[in-house]
């Protein structure tokens, strides 16, 4: 019996949902000559699923038939799930019609591996090409690069896609070998490094010559599964730091492993490590937007992120001698290190203090989380907070406050 498109959509969206990337920002694809779509601005989450994640792109697999048998993957060969495959036109049609109704920013297309990496990627590219050339579609396209892809195939992918991603999945080679016997890190890093230099080269060319087309203008990203293998937060975040600086990735995604299989190659987790995943993202944010080095967040002495308090607060508690920070004198970078003070508040403080002293109530009105921040900043007319003398008491006081807040909900 022939399967209808709605059924395929259900199966292949379900199979694609473990890829957590959802970004639709960072590209510069303008709508020229009255075509359809525009991918210049910031990303838009058009909806949020009931698990609280952003829905920005139509995220599907072309097919969930797969020749590989990776233990962490729901589509692995040995798993007994219903299989389906879209035709090229079905994917094109869904994308265009969803986009025209403002459901999505574009398409995120991945696939199970049939035959080999290049054969699979060529099928994905065919869809992107049709959208761009026949439908003059300027929405966002994220294409998955299957590990082991050749440079010829990636060259074409970059012509039509805004973003490309090769997934590391498992943070260390040793663990990967155990869990995914057909994969190795070389087959991931080789295409990733090729893309890094190709994207760089394209950027340089575009500065020199106007007419050069763009190559993956939204850059590349990757994903790591957290909790399916024994790596500590230290190893994971060191790897992220390298990926951001060496491979110049735009984003590293962390996907808390959900126990979807009984495979003996995997640890027996009862629930997904969601708190840990959340802390990793917070650490990632500190690295990208708050001027922190990863070594300030995790080290051999503190190899795991604190699950009880966020990494910025944990940093401040470990370094009491740096506090309190005088918000009327300290440079912007230091103000940004005060727990409870975000980028926007820090900017408002620095702008306003040119005209007079900024007081505690000003900081509160500007949006800081004062019940945390008050322990770490010095303001006019207030006694010095006790952070320097007794960080342990500050820690308990903050955790206690948090606990109380939650109690009040019930």
């Amino acid at each position, binding site marked *: 019996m022939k399967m209808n498109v709605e059924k395929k959509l259900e199966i292949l969206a379900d199979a694609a949902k473990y890829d957590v990337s959802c970004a639709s920002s960072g590209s510069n694809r303008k709508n020229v000559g009255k075509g359809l779509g525009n991918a210049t601005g910031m990303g838009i*989450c058009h909806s949020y699923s009931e698990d609280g994640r952003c829905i920005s792109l139509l995220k599907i697999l072309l097919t969930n038939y797969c020749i590989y048998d990776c233990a962490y993957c729901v589509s692995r060969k040995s798993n007994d799930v219903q299989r389906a495959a879209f035709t090229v036109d079905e994917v094109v049609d869904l994308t265009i019609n969803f986009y025209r109704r403002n459901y999505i920013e574009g398409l995120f297309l991945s696939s199970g591996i049939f035959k080999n990496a290049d054969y699979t990627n060529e099928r994905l590219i065919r869809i992107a090409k049709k959208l761009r050339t026949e439908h003059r579609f300027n929405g966002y396209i994220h294409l998955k690069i299957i590990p082991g892809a050749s440079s010829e195939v990636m060259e074409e992918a970059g012509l039509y896609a805004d973003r490309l991603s090769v997934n590391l999945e498992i943070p260390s080679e040793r663990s990967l070998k155990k869990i995914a016997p057909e994969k190795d890190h070389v087959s991931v890093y080789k295409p990733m490094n090729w893309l890094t230099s190709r994207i760089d080269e394209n950027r340089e060319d575009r500065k020199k010559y106007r007419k050069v087309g763009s190559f993956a203008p939204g850059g590349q990203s990757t994903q790591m599964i957290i909790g399916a293998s024994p790596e500590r937060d230290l190893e994971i975040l060191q790897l992220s730091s390298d990926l951001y600086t060496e491979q110049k990735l735009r984003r590293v995604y962390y996907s808390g492993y959900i126990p979807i299989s009984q495979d003996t190659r995997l640890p027996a987790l009862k629930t997904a490590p969601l708190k840990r995943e959340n802390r990793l993202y917070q650490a990632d944010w500190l690295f990208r937007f708050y001027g922190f080095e990863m070594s300030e967040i995790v080290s051999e002495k503190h190899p795991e992120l604190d699950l009880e308090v966020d990494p910025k607060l944990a940093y401040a508690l470990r370094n009491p001698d740096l506090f309190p920070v005088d918000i009327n004198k300290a440079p912007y970078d230091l103000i940004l290190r005060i727990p409870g003070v975000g980028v926007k508040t820090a900017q408002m403080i620095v702008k306003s203090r040119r005209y007079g002293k900024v007081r505690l109530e000003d900081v509160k009105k500007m949006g800081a989380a004062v019940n945390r921040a008050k322990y770490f900043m010095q303001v006019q007319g207030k006694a010095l907070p006790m952070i320097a003398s007794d960080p342990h008491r500050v820690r308990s006081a903050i955790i206690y406050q948090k606990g109380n807040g939650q109690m009040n909900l019930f």
Partner: protein
Amino acid sequence: MSDLLLYDGTREGFFTTIFEIYERRIEHAAIQKLNNYSKGLFDEPRVIITDEMKSNRVVEGFKQKTPKGIIEMLTKVLHSELQDAEDIALNIVRSAFSSPKELRIDYRDESILRMKQINKMMHREIHRMHAFVRFQKTIDEIYAATISPDFDVIPFIGDHFEKRYADQQWLIYDTKRDYGLYYDLNEMQTITLTNAGWVSSHQINEAVLAKGEKMFKEAWARYFHATCIQERKNMRLHLQHVPHRYWKYLPEKAMNF
């Protein structure tokens, strides 16, 4: 006692009012929108007739006395329809004109901070409209959507949709304020419909929808449910992102599965 001045609710109307305040040297002025006003016992309100020339003069003067982008922020305050919008705007205009120097963006100042906060609220609503507008194709090949945002954001969302949907006719209609935007493949206009025929819930009448339209809504709702990871379900977070009041326009929330 302060002089009560009523204006038509437009930016030009507001700045014409400012012109009058300075011309007549009114020291204590209160500004209100004409259509919000209900007469108090001792009020002697004056209705200001919008005058583009006068408005432009004030706007130009204001721009010269303020850093870049402040006029846009002030405009958004006026469109927030919040109770204190005109007071805040008047305070800021007064401080800008009272000093020979450029206006200080000092967030310790109550009006400046409030302007910033209102802008944050406005931007969130604008962003939500970029996200939550759901078009339905009609038999006339127009992609139509109804909205009822918390604030008057129609003036700020057209540009985004015009760039994005350049090759389709579209209509976005604010049923709360009874006006909207229509793009006819050539240009975008602000329009008011006289025979909209909304059904009771301010939705587009199903009789005018194109054939097969229901299928896409259903496919989208199916996708929405399939893409959720049940093990991670978090309804508190979900509701924070997609508050109840927007559900009626979202097929993925309005349809039952």
